[in-house]
C-alpha cells in the first residue's frame, strides 16, 4: 500500500510529541514528515536542501503551526499558494492562536482548515485524529496530482 504522507510543521518539541502521540492512536505515525520550522517545510515541499534527493510528490495534507522561527506558518502558506506546483495541497493550520487577525489572514491566504489546539489532551488527540482521518483517508485530490 502506498504510504501517504502528512507534512507536520511544528517547532515546539512537546507539541510535536503530543501531535505524534495523537496520530499514533490512529497508527498514522509512519506517514508523518516533520519540519521544525518554515524553511524546512518549504525545503521538503520544493525538494531542495536536505530533501533535494527525495522522491518527488506532495503530501496528502500539511499541518502547519503559525508561530515558528525563521519563516512562520503564514509565510509558508503564502508561498505554497503562490507556487503553481504546490498550490492545491490541502493545508490545515494547527495553532494555539485563536486571534481573529490570524484567522482572517489564514483564510485570506486560502487555508483549507483552521484548528485551535485544545488545551485538554483528550480533545487534542481527538482533533489530531480527526484531521488525519479526514485529510488522509476521506479527502480526494485530482488524479493528475502526484501524491507520495
Amino acid at each position: 500500500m502506498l504510504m501517504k504522507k502528512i507534512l507536520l510543521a511544528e517547532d515546539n518539541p512537546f507539541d510535536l510529541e503530543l501531535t505524534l502521540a495523537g496520530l499514533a492512536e490512529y497508527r498514522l505515525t509512519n506517514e508523518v514528515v516533520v519540519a521544525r520550522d518554515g524553511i524546512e517545510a518549504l525545503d521538503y515541499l520544493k525538494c531542495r536542501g536536505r530533501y533535494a534527493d527525495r522522491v518527488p510528490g506532495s503530501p496528502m495534507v500539511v499541518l502547519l503551526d503559525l508561530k515558528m522561527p525563521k519563516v512562520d506558518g503564514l509565510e509558508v502558506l503564502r508561498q505554497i499558494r503562490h507556487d503553481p506546483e504546490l498550490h492545491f495541497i490541502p493545508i490545515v493550520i494547527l495553532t494555539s492562536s485563536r486571534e481573529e487577525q490570524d484567522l482572517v489572514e489564514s483564510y485570506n491566504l486560502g487555508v483549507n482548515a483552521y484548528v485551535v489546539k485544545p488545551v485538554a489532551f483528550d480533545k487534542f488527540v481527538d482533533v489530531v485524529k480527526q484531521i488525519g482521518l479526514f485529510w488522509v483517508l476521506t479527502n480526494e485530490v485530482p488524479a493528475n496530482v502526484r501524491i507520495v
Partner: protein
Amino acid sequence: LRLRPVAAYVLDESRRAMDDQQKTKAELLTDITALRTRVAELEQARRNGSAGVFVPYEIKTDDGLNASLLFEHHPMAMWIYDVETLAFLAVNDAAIQQYDYSREEFLSMTIRDIRPAEELPRLLDRLESLPVGPRNVSHDWKHRTKSGALIYVDVISYAVKFGGRLAKLILANDVTERQRAEQEILRLNRELERRVDDRTAQLEAANKELEAFSYSVSHDLRAPLRHIDGFSRLLAQREAARLDETSGRYLSIISDAARRMGQLIDDLLAFSRMGRAEMRALPVDLEHLVADVHHELAPACEGRSIDWVIGMLPIVRGDAAMLRIVLTNLLSNAIKYTAPRPAAHISITASADDDAWQIAIADNGVGFDMQYAHKLFGVFQRLHRDEEFEGTGIGLATVRRIIDRHGGRVWAQGEIGAGATFFFTLAPYAQE
C-alpha cells in the same frame, strides 16, 4: 443731488431733537419717520453709485453745546483729525480715558502716535486707498496707549469738515477684551485638539499593547498548559498499572488544573475582546435570539425539569453576536443555579422602561445575598465555591461590558434560596 453722510445727518437730527425738548411725541414720531425715509434714500443712492458726489458734513464750531454734548459724553472713544496733517483736532473724554493721554497731549499729537510702528504701513495704505465716502468701518486695528499697552479697536470713520478743514470723525471701539477672549478660545481649542490627539495616540498605543498582550496570552500561555495536561495524561496512561490511587489522583488534579486555567484564559480573552471588538448597531429580534440560545442550551437542560416562560420580546438596537453572548451567559446561569430544584422555573420577559426596553431573566434557583450584589459583575468575582457551582467568574463581567457598550444598564435582585432576577436595558430599534 446733495447727500449728507448718514451718521452726520443722524447726529444732526438727534442734536436738533435734543435741542427742542418741547416737541410732542407725535412730532418726534414724524421726525423718526422722516429720518427713516432719508436713511432709505441715502442707502438707495449709495447702492446706485450716486454717492460719488458726496460732500462732507460740516461740523461748525459754533454748532454750540448740543453737538459737543454727544461727542464729549459719548461712551465710545471719539476724535476728529485733520486729513492732511493727521493731527488731532478734538478728542472726547472716553478717548482720554481709553488712551491715558491728556487732552493737551492728544492735541499735540498725530494719529500715527497712537499706533505701534508695525501698524503704520497699514495705516498709510489705508488712508491712501480709503474711498471717498461718508462712512467707513474697519476692524482689528492695534493702538498703543500712553503706558505702551496695546489695545485692539474697531474703527468707524466719518468724513467731516471741522473748522473749515477736511477732517475725519473717528469712533474707536475697544475690542481688546473680545479679541483676548477670542484668542483665548482659539488657544484653548488648539490646546484641546492637541490633548485629544495626545490621548488618542496614548489610547491607540494602549490598545496595540493590549492586543499584543492578548495575542501572547492566547498563543504563548496556552502551549505550556497543553503540555502539562498532555504529558500528565500520557504519564497516567503509561504508568496506569504501577500508579497507586493517590498518585493517579495527583496526576488528574494536575490535568484538571491545567484545563481550568485554559478555560480561564479563554474566558478572559473573550472578555477583553468584548471591550475591543467593533460593535454594530442593527435591529436585533430578541425573540428569535432567545429561541436560538434556548435551543443551543438544550444539552445543559438534559435530565432536568425546567418550566420556561418566554414572554413577548421586542426588537432592539444592538450587536446580535454580542447580545447572544449576554443571553447565553444569563440563561446558562439560570439553568446552572436552578440545578438543585426538582422543578425549575426560568422566565424571560420584557417591559417598557422610559425610552428603553427592560429585559428580565428570573429563576427560582439558589439565589444570592443582596449584600454581595455589587460583586456579581466583577471579573473573577464568584459568590459560590467551585464544588457547588463551576464557573470562572467572567460571564457576568462580560455581560456588563456588553450592555455598557450598548449604553444600557444591568443589575440583579436576589435572595438566598429564593431565586435571582437579572435585568438589563436596551434601546428600542426605531425605524428611520
